[in-house]
């Protein structure tokens, strides 16, 4: 089955953020590991939430990311691009700080 997480950037800081949904509540987290993993139906509903958040000027450029769910609420990325985006630069000065 296909799985997704919803990501965006914080408008104010620019940081990469992830949508976390718990029941009816939701919020944005900077820790990729705590993003909510959903199926195709949830993806559409969550993307609608994210787009409303963008209209509320909290995030920019939300989108759904394909992931592989591990069945225990966690996930791994399917492309190098998305894993680098989630994990930060893989080299250099960014690592030291």
């Amino acid at each position: 089955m296909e799985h997704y997480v919803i990501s965006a950037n914080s408008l104010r800081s620019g940081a990469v953020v992830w949508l976390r949904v718990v029941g009816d509540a939701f919020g944005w987290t900077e820790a990729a590991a705590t993003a909510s993993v959903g199926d195709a139906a949830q993806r559409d509903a969550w993307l609608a939430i994210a787009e409303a958040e963008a209209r509320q000027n909290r995030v920019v450029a939300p989108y759904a990311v394909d992931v592989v769910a591990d069945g225990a609420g966690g996930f791994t990325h399917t492309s190098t691009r998305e894993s680098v985006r989630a994990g930060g630069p893989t080299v250099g000065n960014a690592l030291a700080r």
Partner: protein
Amino acid sequence: MYRYDQLDRTFVAERVRQFRDQVARRLDGRLTEDEFKPLRLQNGLYLQLHAYMLRVAIPYGVLSSRQLRALAAIARTYDKGYGHYTTRQNIQFNWIRLDQAADVLAALAEVEMHAIQTSGNCVRNVTTDHLAGIAPDEIADPRPYCELLRQWSTLHPEFSFLPRKFKIAVTGAEADRAAIAVHDIGLRLVLDAAGAVGFEVLVGGGLGRTPILGSVIRRFLPASDLLGYVEAILRVYNRYGRRDNIYKARIKILVKALGAEAFGRAVEAEWQAMDRDGMAIDAGMLDRVATHFAPPAYAELADAAPERAQAMREPAFARWLARNVLPHRVPCYRAVMIALKGGGAVPGDATAETMERVADLAELFSFGEIRVTHTQNLVLGHVAAHDLAALWHALRVAGLANPVVGTVTDIIACPGLDYCALATARAIPIAQAIDAAFADVAELHDIGDLRINISGCINSCGHHHVGDIGILGVDKRGQEVYQLTLGGSSADEASLGTILGPSLPPDQVAGAVRRVVDVYMERREPGESFLALVRRLGVDAFKARVYGGLEAHAA
């Protein structure tokens, strides 16, 4: 260097104030993202893979120590303590918060800097030879002309919405260190038979997915006609350049479609029709700008080469002299290159501490001036020969005396997928792997000049088409692979590299580079450059070794 007058200061301060207001309106929702995005881009603020990135213009790559300290302070206060020097002689900060971006611009304005026209479809930062005013082979100093072009192009109302971005490079020397053949307009200062200064004008060069070398459309343009003629080129481009397809919008596509000769005729016609006298650079104007680039107060020094004696005693010093120290047009002065490379460094990255240390040393040894090279290094341009040993010791302590300038490990690499939203693959780790594979400095010196350029996508910010060895990162079904090209050059007799063979996975790139270099070392004639050997043998001689070696490895 150029100093702002009251007009410049007021203008830049006004822009900061406007941007602060725009950000406030974006944050409270009065501006939508669609409305705000063009405004932030006009101030050099991009949204990259991880965060907002601010690109700051360093006009023609010249910085004062005061400006460098300000950049260091910005890195420390508003970023994660480092910045990245680009192939366009700019600096990028990778982690700027939107709610602090106007503060950063205000800090820049304090030292007469800004981020205007570092993005968007306008005339970008004009680049030049990092040895301008220094090199012994210089015909005339290009910087006053760069400054005139900068003033002319800044907020030029007619050219704020060109079909695509527009890059101009100027060289004033015989050896082209500014890569003019791969710019939208390349200008080379030349003298006519009577000794008058003028420009050879190239148009339509560029890299990206359609790499093309520029064509000469005028052999000699009197220097006083520079602005009018460049304006005529921009007008022809602005009118006929394609706006329907972003991949066909650069001037190179137009020049190719029309043919350089027809394009040149259209420019001449446009130029003849304009008020040429009104556009002429008169002597007073040139002199006023040129005073900003007056040479520093060089001392009259006697000893011709005081560094030699010490070099005899210190092999490490001798190696540094051989690679990082260049001749100066003034006797007993030298230009010293500081490689932001080697030892696992990220090409072009500098920490706040490094920038401050370089600013200190520039004040002590080089009249407080620093240059940024398009190869992502720094230059202290005016060092007295008798100070070289002291400077070397100080650089060594700071870890900045890596004697690798121009060698295999002086790699140009764009930020690639570690930072860039457009990237298809990482560039920095590949540079680091090659760096690790060529850790032996004696071997690097034995190999000599060899340029390796790496881009993380076909936009080619890492100039891979014009490296002796070019490396392009490509995405293959979500995985990074790398395509090698050989025989590119951005110098005189510029050429584009030829693809060597099938793409390689990341862990095989450094090994492939090693085998290419082995072929060079085995087959070169005395004094033969890598480029000359590739031209003599063709790429197949290298291909057999690289891919043959891989099969042997797999077996």
